[in-house]
C-alpha cells in the first residue's frame, strides 16, 4: 500500500491544480474609466490646460471609438471603456482672439489649430489616464488634395500604373509649384516592438547608425525613401487659387489600350475602373535616371513627351539606390506623403533604418526631412485594421490617418470641401486626415462628393 500511496502522491504533485497559470492576471476584465489630460506644448506655449479639446480614443483591437470634450481643467474623462490598446488623438482650434487671450499675442492666421496623438496606449484597471501635449504647425497654403494609391483591378483595370497625387492651392493667392518636393515616407509596417523601436512600434531613428539628433530624430524629422521635385525656375508653373496640379506615375490615358516599353500590348477591359492622366501637369519618369545607373527602363514607365517630367530629387544615397523602378505607391496604403520646399536637398543627411547594424551593399538609406519644412502631410494606412502600422507623421502634421477600403478598388483618398467663397472651393485642412478626407472613386481634378 505504501507504494500505492507514493504513486498517488506523485500523481497529485505532477498534475497539481495550480491557479498561477496566468501570473497575477486572474482578474476579470471589466470596462474601466480613463482620462486624458490635455496640455498645450510647454516648449512653444505655456503648458496650460486645454479646455474643450476634442479627444478621440480608438480601440486598436476592435476599431471602436469614443469621443469626449475636455473640461475646464483640460481633462477628458471616458467612462466605462473596454480595456485594451488605444490610439488617442486630440484637437483644439483657437480663434485669433482666443489665442490672444490664452497666450498674450496675436497669431498670423485667423485661427490656430493644435493637434496631439499617442499610439498603442494600454488601458486597463492599472492605468487610469495619460497626458497629451498639443502642438501646432502652420496650415499649408498648398495642400495634398488627392492620393490615388490603391490602383485599379489587376485584370480589368490598370493595376498600379494609374496612380497619381494631386496638389491644390487652398489659398487666395497664386502660388508657384516650382521646386515643390513630394516625399514618400518610410517607416515600420508592424506595431511589434523591438530594441530599435519606440513604444508604438515605429522605428526609433535616434538609434540609426551615425544619427546625432537624439530623441529629436523622432519628434522633429520624417524620413523618406523617395523625393520628387517640380521642375522650374521659380515662376514657370503657377497654381491659381482653387486650382491644382496632378502628378502622375505615368501621364497617359490609362483607359485606352497601349503598348509598354517591352512592346507588349496592354489592354484595359473596363476603362471605367481607371483614369485618364494624359492631361496631368507632371509625370514621374525614371527612365533617364535608371539608364544612368546602367539599369533598364521599367516596362510600365512609359514616357509621354506631352507631360512634363518631375525631377528625381532623392532615390537613395548615391551608390545605394533605392529599389523602386518607378514612382510606385504601396497599393495597401502603407506609405505616407509630405510636401515641402528645399532648394538644396543634398544638404539633408540620410540614414539607414535603426534595425540595420552593419551597412552592406543592399542597405537602404532614407533622407531626413525637418518637420518645420513640411507644408502638408497625409498619413495613409493599411485597409485591414489587423495590419495597420505605427504613424510616420507627427500628430501636429497629421493627427490621424486615412485609407481606402481595399487595394486595386479604384478608390482614392480625397480632401473634403469646407466651403465655397466666390466660386472658389476651400478644402478642409485641420491636419487631421480622418476628418479632412473621404475615400471615393479616383477623379483627377475632381472634388469630394
Amino acid at each position, binding site marked *: 500500500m505504501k507504494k500505492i500511496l507514493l504513486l498517488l502522491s506523485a*500523481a497529485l504533485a505532477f498534475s497539481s491544480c495550480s491557479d498561477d497559470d*496566468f501570473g497575477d492576471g486572474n482578474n476579470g476584465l471589466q470596462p474601466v474609466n480613463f482620462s486624458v489630460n490635455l496640455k498645450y506644448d510647454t516648449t512653444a506655449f505655456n503648458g496650460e490646460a486645454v479646455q474643450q479639446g476634442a479627444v478621440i480614443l480608438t480601440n486598436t483591437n476592435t476599431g471602436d471609438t469614443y469621443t469626449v470634450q475636455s473640461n475646464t481643467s483640460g481633462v477628458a474623462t471616458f467612462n466605462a471603456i473596454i480595456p485594451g490598446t488605444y490610439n488617442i488623438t486630440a484637437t483644439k482650434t483657437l480663434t485669433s482672439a482666443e489665442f490672444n487671450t490664452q497666450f498674450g499675442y496675436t497669431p498670423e492666421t485667423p485661427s490656430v489649430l493644435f493637434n496631439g496623438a499617442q499610439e498603442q496606449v494600454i488601458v486597463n484597471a492599472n492605468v487610469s489616464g495619460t497626458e497629451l501635449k498639443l502642438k501646432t504647425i502652420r496650415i499649408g497654403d498648398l495642400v495634398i488634395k488627392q492620393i490615388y494609391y490603391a490602383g485599379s483591378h489587376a485584370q480589368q483595370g490598370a493595376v498600379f500604373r494609374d496612380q497619381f497625387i494631386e496638389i491644390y492651392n487652398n489659398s487666395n493667392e497664386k502660388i508657384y509649384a516650382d521646386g515643390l518636393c513630394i516625399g514618400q515616407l518610410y517607416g515600420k509596417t508592424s506595431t511589434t516592438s523591438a530594441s530599435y523601436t519606440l513604444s508604438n512600434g515605429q522605428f526609433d531613428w535616434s538609434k540609426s547608425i551615425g544619427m546625432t539628433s537624439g530623441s529629436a530624430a523622432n519628434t522633429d524629422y520624417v524620413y523618406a525613401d523617395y523625393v520628387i521635385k517640380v521642375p522650374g525656375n521659380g515662376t514657370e508653373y503657377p497654381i491659381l487659387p482653387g486650382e491644382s496640379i496632378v502628378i502622375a506615375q505615368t501621364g497617359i490615358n490609362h483607359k485606352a489600350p497601349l503598348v509598354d516599353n517591352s512592346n507588349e500590348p496592354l489592354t484595359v477591359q473596363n476603362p471605367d475602373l481607371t483614369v485618364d492622366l494624359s492631361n496631368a501637369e507632371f509625370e514621374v519618369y525614371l527612365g533617364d535616371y535608371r539608364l544612368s545607373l546602367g539599369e533598364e527602363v521599367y516596362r510600365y514607365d512609359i514616357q509621354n513627351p506631352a507631360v512634363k517630367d518631375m525631377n528625381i530629387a532623392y532615390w537613395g544615397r548615391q551608390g545605394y539606390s533605392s529599389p523602386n523602378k518607378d514612382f510606385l505607391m504601396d497599393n495597401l496604403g502603407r506609405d505616407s506623403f509630405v510636401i515641402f520646399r528645399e532648394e538644396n536637398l543634398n544638404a539633408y543627411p540620410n540614414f539607414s533604418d535603426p534595425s540595420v547594424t552593419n551597412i552592406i551593399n543592399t542597405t537602404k538609406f532614407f533622407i531626413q526631412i525637418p518637420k518645420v519644412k513640411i507644408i502638408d502631410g497625409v498619413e495613409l494606412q493599411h485597409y485591414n485594421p489587423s495590419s495597420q502600422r505605427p504613424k510616420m507623421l507627427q500628430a501636429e502634421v497629421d493627427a490621424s490617418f486615412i485609407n481606402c477600403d481595399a487595394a486595386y478598388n479604384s478608390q482614392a483618398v480625397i480632401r473634403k470641401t469646407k466651403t465655397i467663397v466666390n466660386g472658389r472651393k476651400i478644402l478642409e485642412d485641420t491636419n487631421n486626415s480622418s476628418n479632412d478626407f473621404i475615400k471615393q472613386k479616383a477623379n483627377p481634378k475632381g472634388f469630394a462628393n
Partner: protein
Amino acid sequence: MTSKKVIFYFILLVSCAANAQLTDSLSVQQNLFYNDVQQHFWKNPLFYTTQHLNDFTLTQIDFSQKNLNLKRVQTADRTTQYSFSTQGIYNVKPRLRLFGGFTFNKIAEKGLGYNFSTQRTENQNVLSPNYFFAPKKGDWDIQNYNLDGGFAYQFDSNILLGAKAFYKNGKSYRTIDPRPEIQQSNYGGELQTGYNFNNNSLFVSAGIAKKTETSNITYVNDAQNAPAYPETFTRFASGYGRIIFNSSYNRYIFNTIDKNFGFGYQYQNSRNKVSATYKYNKSLESFYRKNARGYVYIDDELKMYMYRVIAHTGELNYFYDGEKVDYKAAFGYERQKGDNFSVIENGQNYRMNLDIFTFSNGVIKKDKDRVVYAFELGANYIKHKYIDLLGNTDKLLNTLEIQTSFNKDILAKEKNKINLSVGVKYYMALDEKLVFIPISSSNTSFADNVIRPDQAFDATSKLQSNIMAQYFYSLSKTKKLRIFANYNTLVALGDQYKTYTTDFNTTESSYFNGGISIIY
C-alpha cells in the same frame, strides 16, 4: 426521476445480481449494449485484468452523411465522411492484455461559416475562445489519422500496471477565401498502476498530452480581407461576443498541454462489478502570434492569449454479467470550468462553467448468441454558464436529455443474424437566459448572427429518433461479416426559438451512416 428513486433502482439492480455465479467471457462486439463496456475498458484497463474480454479485431469501412438544417451556426450545413478503422483487444497471456486501434477519416464539409477553427458546435454549445472567423460560408476538406494503444498487466505480486498512448494527426483547409489551413498534431500517454487484493482493485493514474495546431489564413484576393467586405474580413473571437482584430491571422500556433491524474476503486466478484473513479484534467491552450519578422514559434514572448479548462469527473459504474441477462448502470458527474487570459490586457474576460450529471442503465437478455432484447434508458442534466465580460454576453442554460433505445436480433440463424435497433432522445431546456448588452459598435454582428441563433437552437425542445439495422454473416467459426445502416433525424418540438429570432430554420436534420466490418 428523483434521486431517491434512482438510488433505490440501483440497489435493486445490485441486490438482484449479488448471488449469481458464472465466469464466462464477454464479447463486447456482440451487441451495441456493450459499447459502454468497451469504452470503460479503454479508459480503465486495470479494472479488466481479471475479467476476460474476448479477443477481437474489428476492421471497418464506413460512410456517413449529415444534412444539418436544425443546427447551431458554427457547424457545416452538410458533412460527408469516409472512414477506415481497425481496433482490437488481445489477451496475450491471462495476465496481459493489449488493446489499440487506428482510424483514418476523410471529411468534406459544405457551408460552414463564422468558424476557422477545428472545433464545431455540433456537440458543444459554444466554441472555446480564441479563434478566427469570417461570416462567409465555405467548404472544408479534412483528414484525420488517429492511432492509440495500450496494455494492462497484473504482476504475481498483484500489482497492476497499465499504460495508454495515442497519436493524432490532422489537416484541415477551406477551399474559398478566406482560406484557413490547419495542421494538427496531438500525442500523449497515461500511466496507470494499482493493486489487486481479493476482489478489490485500486489504481492511480497520471497522464500528459500535447497538441499543436499550426495555422495560417490566406486569400487569393487579399483585398477581401478588409472591413469594407464584412463577409470575408477575418476577425478574432476572444471570448463569447468579444470580437477583435488580430494581425497574426496569416501565421499562428495553438499549443495545448493537457495533464491529468485520477484514481479508482473496483469491487468485483464472479458476476458483479462495481467501480468508482475520479479524474482531474487540466488543459492549458496558448495562442502564439508571429514575431516582427513574420515568423511564428512557441516562445513566451509571442504568447498572446490562453485558455484553460479544468475538469473534475466522477463516475460510478455497475455491471452484472449474468448467464442470460446482463445489467449495467452508470452515474457520472463532471464539473468543467473554463477561463481565458489575455497577455496584453493582463486579465480575463471569458468564463465557462458546466455541471454535467449523467445517468444510464440497461439490460440485455441473451439466448446463447442471440440477443432476445436489449433495453437502455438514460438521462443527462447539464447546467451551462457562459459569460463574456467584455463582449457583455451572459448565457445560461439548464438542459435535460432523456434517451432510450431498444434492440433485438430479429433473425438469428446459424450463419445469419439481423439486429434491429430503435431509439429516441428528447431534449428540453428547463431554464435558459441570454443577456447581451452591446457596449461597443464592433460586436453586434456576431451576436445577431451567432449568439442569438444558437440560443434559439439551445432553447428549443427537440426529438432525435434513430433506427439502425445490422446484418451479421458468419464467415467461419471466429470470423463475422457485419453490414450496418443507421439513420437519425432531429426535429424541433417547440417554438422557443421565436424568443430570439423569427428567421430560424426548423427543417429537420438527418444523419445516415452505413458500412461494412469484419470481426475476427
